[in-house]
């Protein structure tokens, strides 16, 4: 397993007035053998980033590297494997699951070797190897997602990218897939980029958490640190909004402030300065003296702030003693 790094990766769709920068200069490193969790709301560009890595979407700028070597050809990219969100859509309904997995095996092999490898992979993801001859329609969502994982592993990848792999599953199945992901990661030492909109799910599997907002990484750091002492107000907003037992809706959180925008801004027309400032509970809408947020983009100095937070006031918070 090797290290995956994004350096200033940019993905732009369309031209002229309809142009949209889905991923805007993302710097992110997935260290070898670790799991980086990427959270963000829909439209934040997290799936686009993963698709760009495997070559399903062309990049318009920056570099994606594997152990420092840029990925250029499709052969290079095959070392990255993507697991898709919806297992009902990601398996060809006309191919047996054995064929689907065998298709991803690299190089030419004899039939017997192929069958044996497929059986090994099925066993690895906790499925009966005898299932190799069944069609996806005979499998439940959780089982299909296991097959999708087996197919990704069949390609002998250096890095696995998991894009919302549990959000199409029922909660009781989600648990077993998450357990499998953790087991596989530990057993095989996988390098993983784990994408989800669900902070609790990301927290459960990740060593590092990166938070994405409108095409940019706004905070990244060790999972525990990001969750217990977030540096970017958007991360806090996400944490506050996560439903939890015993937390009533009417317990106010800062993001409930009616002065703030309720909607995310359009990615076609991101606001000037900090992209989050119109939704920020500690930004100019609640603290008028903070005009810098509406004027200056906090991204450039992010590398020097704690958790590489794209927030002008990230360090202020650090000086605040815990009560």
């Amino acid at each position: 397993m090797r290290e995956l790094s994004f350096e200033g990766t940019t993905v732009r769709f369309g031209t002229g007035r309809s142009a949209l920068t889905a991923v805007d200069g993302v710097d992110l490193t997935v260290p070898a053998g670790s799991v980086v969790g990427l959270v963000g709301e829909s439209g934040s560009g997290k799936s686009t980033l993963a698709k760009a890595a495997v070559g399903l979407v062309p990049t318009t700028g920056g570099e994606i590297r594997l152990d420092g070597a840029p990925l250029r050809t499709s052969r290079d990219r095959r070392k990255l494997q993507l697991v898709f969100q919806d297992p009902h859509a990601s398996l060809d309904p006309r191919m047996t699951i054995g064929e689907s997995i065998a298709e991803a095996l690299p190089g030419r092999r004899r039939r017997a070797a192929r069958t044996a490898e497929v059986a090994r992979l099925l066993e690895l993801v906790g499925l009966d190897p005898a299932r190799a001859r069944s069609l996806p329609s005979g499998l439940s969502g959780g089982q299909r997602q296991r097959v999708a994982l087996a197919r990704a592993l069949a390609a002998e990848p250096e890095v696995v990218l998991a894009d919302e792999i549990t959000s199409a599953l029922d909660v009781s199945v989600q648990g077993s897939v998450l357990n499998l992901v953790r087991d596989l990661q530990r057993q095989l030492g996988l390098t993983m980029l784990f994408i989800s909109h669900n902070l609790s799910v990301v927290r459960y599997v990740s060593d590092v958490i990166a938070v994405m907002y409108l095409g940019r990484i706004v905070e990244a750091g060790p999972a525990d640190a990001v969750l217990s002492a977030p540096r970017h107000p958007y991360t806090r907003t996400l944490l506050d909004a996560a439903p939890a037992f015993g937390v009533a809706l009417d317990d106010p959180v800062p993001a409930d402030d009616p002065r703030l925008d309720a909607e995310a801004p359009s990615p076609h027309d991101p606001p000037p300065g900090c992209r989050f400032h119109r939704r920020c509970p500690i930004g100019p809408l609640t603290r008028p003296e903070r005009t810098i947020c509406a004027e200056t983009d906090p991204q450039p100095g992010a590398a020097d702030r704690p958790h590489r937070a794209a927030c002008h006031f990230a360090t202020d918070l650090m000086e605040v003693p815990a009560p």
Partner: protein
Amino acid sequence: MGRDQWRAALRNPVGAVAAGLLVVLAILAVVAPILWGDAAEETDPAALSQGSTSEHPLGTDALGRDIMLRVLVATRYSLGLALLATAICVVAGVLLGVLPAVLGRRAGRLVTAAVNLAVAFPGLLLALFFAVIFGVGARGAVLAIGLAGAPSFARLVQTNVAAVAGRDYVAAARVAGVGRFRLVARHLLPNIGEPLVVNATVMAGTALLAFAGLSFLGLGVQPPAYDWGRLLGEGLDRIYINPAAALAPGVAVVVAGLAFTLLGESIAQVVGVRAVRRRRPPAADEPAAALARAAAEPDAVLVADDLRVGFPAPGGGWTHPVDGVGLTVRRGETVGIVGESGSGKSLTALAVAQLAPDSAHVTAQRLEVAGVAPLGRADAEVRELLGTKVAMVFQDPMTSFNPSMRVGRQLAEVTRVHERQGRRAALARAVDRLRTVRVPAPERRAHQYPHEFSGGMRQRAMIAMGLMSTPELIIADEPTTALDVTVQRQVLRLLEDVQAETGAAVVLISHDIAVVGQLCERVVVMYAGRVVEELPVGRLGAAAHPYTRALLASVPDLATDRDRPLATIPGRPPDPADRPEGCAFAPRCEFADDACRVRPGLAAVAPDQRAACWHPRTQPLDLALDAVPGGSCDTDRRWGAEGPPEPSVQGVGRLERVRDPLHDPTSDRGAGGQA
């Protein structure tokens, strides 16, 4: 297309007739030239250009040949040429159609543009053009008709390929390094086979007609060979003398053409929409009332007792995805229905709102919604009675709005239909309701189309639509599943406010027990079409049914121990058609024993808590329910001393309910509205 579907296509009367005709034509095509080939060539100088006689039922032509025999013998040539032309068309069409998928982006675009240009060119003109190039004769005509049909077939292949190419499994194969040609052969073509087969069949009928046309004009088959078109042309000269000579080949062309086209249509019907056949409802089962008796409540907005929703099963008989649900919702109450996909939670809600699909059969011992018993009444009457009393909020607000109508007008329509209000007054109310649900700049937003709204705003507008009249019951079916957490929180808070303000009862359906726990007072847990537990939210930590407990334990939250595996439920939920006898959860339950072979009824395990289990659990669950302030959601620490900004309240533990003035239902609503 499976064998069953082929069979279904043939079982359909139109399909059966078409297939029968084609079989007859095929036999004729094989047999007729062998039996009558020579006789049809035989000239009879004694009987030139005769009308119908006993010897020649359809008369003879100018050389005295029998027209009936000639029409029969021409079957082979006519059909053969038509099929050959179709084959050329299909092959050329498929090649042109998949080329863009195989070639690179730029070359692909060029091919697509060329095909689009060719499609715009009239087909018959193209055929005439080709007929001139390839020379007059059967060969030229086959090539002409085949190639003239190719562009439209190529377009069909292209659109279908484009649709399939966008699917995840094609993307997955590309990521796995599958080559372009293999991608086409293994993933694209097999998955677009159905529409292609249908269209090729219809195309064969069209080719037959086109061929007859060309031959009729003298551009097709040349003498001495003959097909139906030529026979028609020859017969037409003498149509006033012997009409049968022209009619017979004409009828042959029409019948054969119809046979192909109708077969195509009936296959298309089977492949496209699965025909829903209404079946007679099942005989009344013995009432399971004892199992699910809803408590009689004086101020209930919704009472459902032994509610069952049945669908005709494919193999005959009925399956019941909702199987004896008892549910009572009191005025002003917020009840959550939790369950996994297939548990029947959404169908229960649809049945209650009288929105169950047409093929469903809804029965209940008792069903009362807002004081109305809708079962057994006519649809129009129910709509009249419930239209203003029940509001539905669906998961995907994009599909529940008409995309071509402005949001304001759509909202206004509700009152215009139900209260016969004027357009201006209705629109004013729509704007007012949009303001109530805190849509910013409601006057401007009312004039926008649904696609101009974000997901959260659309869901607000949906709730506003429910508020156009004064609903007594709001049913929200997974209203926040498609939304992000921050927006989810806003929508849930909005629902809470709306509920507090209007006093309507809210039924929230969700797969996420944490969401339900946040908004609701009471939780109803469903499994395999039945209610397995009913409890106040505060008692979730003391859930008695093993399924409820497993659901609670399997969801990771921000306090889950990361070093321990998550709790899982082995197995999968049963198919409603194949529900195990007794307790449906027993096969997946670690506490199941012989007693569980008998279906348990809902029985009280604590005040206000009922569980359908023979072995209810009693020890408390380890939930983060009673986490102390200072835990992961302690606002003070995470927002630092400068924060938390208004309107949050500092130094208050989260279990002490504090309402901020903006969300206090007793305060002036205007404050929230102007936000």
